[in-house]
């Protein structure tokens, strides 16, 4: 197995007296395609929130590219190359699609107001590079036609692609996808899967939380199963799905 890009160790979380995550540990390889499944209420969303820095865990640590990021805020984790998307796509609705991508680029110079006035040359060079990157991802995601439309006018599927595009603009080492196939028609599921494969071939790692088991197991090479706050199983999709405990937790509910 390749070197781990994201390494989660002994994460615990409880809300009041209810324990949501109990000692969850797993490692997602750099450049690999990992999936995470689990019934509703298994703790997937909470785990995602802790990994990305939206919530603090009650214990355990998150390592990203060998660095302990447990105490870092979301912005810092993003800057290290950890991007994420949302289950319900979010966009800067009043900005155009292109501006949505450009705003997400980790600019060095353009972020400071004084540079706008005192270092215009530097800013122009940086903006040109960012615009070129945005153009490249717009073409890759087939969003060129709507590049100058306000993001609020996009269809549901296009919003999913825009989410991916925004994540790509931060030059990620790993992208965490929260249900990328939810509410997406089968044709687009195929297209999004294809894009994810191509990106993975370029060395970007993925951790995908998804309810669409069929699409997910075709896509990923490693599957983690979360159930009632514990890691129930992990391995190649075929083995994991054949596991009796997994079948019971996932298909049979409490049976």
């Amino acid at each position, binding site marked *: 197995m390749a070197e781990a890009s994201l390494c989660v160790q002994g994460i615990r979380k409880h809300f009041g007296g209810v324990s949501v995550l109990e000692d969850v540990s797993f490692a997602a390889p750099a450049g690999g395609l990992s999936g995470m499944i689990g019934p509703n209420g298994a703790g997937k969303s909470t785990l995602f929130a802790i990994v990305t820095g939206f919530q603090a865990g009650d214990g355990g640590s998150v390592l990203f590219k060998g660095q302990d990021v447990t105490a870092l805020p979301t*912005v810092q984790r993003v800057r290290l190359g950890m991007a994420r998307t949302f289950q319900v796509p979010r966009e800067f609705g009043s900005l155009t699609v292109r501006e949505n991508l450009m705003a997400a680029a980790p600019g060095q110079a*353009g972020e400071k107001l004084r540079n*706008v006035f005192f270092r215009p040359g530097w800013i122009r060079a940086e903006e040109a590079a960012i615009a070129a990157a945005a153009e490249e991802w717009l073409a890759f995601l087939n969003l060129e036609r709507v590049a100058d439309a306000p993001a609020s006018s996009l269809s549901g599927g296009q919003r999913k692609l825009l989410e991916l595009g925004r994540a790509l603009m931060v030059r990620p080492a790993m992208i965490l996808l929260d249900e990328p196939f939810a509410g997406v028609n089968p044709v687009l599921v195929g297209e999004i899967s294809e894009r994810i494969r191509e990106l993975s071939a370029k060395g970007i790692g993925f951790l995908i939380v998804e309810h669409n088991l069929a699409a997910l197991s075709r896509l990923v090479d490693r599957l983690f199963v979360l159930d009632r706050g514990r890691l129930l199983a992990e391995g190649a999709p075929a083995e994991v799905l054949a596991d009796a405990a997994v079948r019971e937790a996932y298909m049979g509910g409490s049976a």
Partner: protein
Amino acid sequence: MGFSLFANLAFNGLITGLVVSLLALSITLVFGIARFPNAAAGDVATVGAFAGLLGPLAGGGTLWIILCGMAAGALLSVAFYFLLFRPLAGKSAVSSLIASIGMAFFVRAALTFFLGHDQRVYPLPIVRAMPVGPLRVQPTDIEIVVAAVLALAAVFSILHLTPIGKRMRAVADNAELARVSGIRANRVLVAMWLIAGLLAGLSGTLLGVKTVVSPEMGWDLLMPAFAATILGTIGNPVGAVLGGVLIGLAQELSTPFVGFTYKLGVGFLVLLVTLLIRPQGLFAKNSLVR
């Protein structure tokens, strides 16, 4: 009450309206990005107007008055951010609002304590008004219009043509999404408070150029500016500017009917009618804040 009276009132209304617009734009930027109504904006304008009194020490003319006022407004505004609004950022908008009201009172009391209640005027030469058609135009009127229009153009260029402006609009649109897109909120906020302070300082000095400088001037300007912000849809920069001009016109054009004393009340009336009929403001569709 002939045509020339109303033409002059409208021209005056436009000038007052531009002054209101600058403060309304300052308020709407803060609301769009930091998400609270900044009641201290008016008193930042007052401080700017008083700082403008130092202008003649630096050089002659309206330009230095304006530059001193803008610098003071920007300094105070950024200081407020670091001292007050950044520590309060995680709390509810109400705590920031109350802090800004407290800061407004504090600033006004400090100004009155050290400088007294007296009205002051900028040492500008008194010039006879030029007749332009039916209008009587003071040279300072032209300076006010030019300064306001240049400032508005600069702010809109920053918002729409620069990378930091794009990020400001992104944070205003969806702050949480901005965070996961790697946008450093801190830098956006410093830039925003700086611009808000420059605008408030400018609006204070221009009001001082038009009328007089007094410790209450900013507070009196705050009410029409809030009305303009709401009329033009809170968080919408274009709306704030147009709202300001509309309020200025309404205030001046109403003076023959309600008298000079009550023209401030017209601002409230516009605010009240807006809230009753169209609480989302005139420009709700294409706003900075969704």
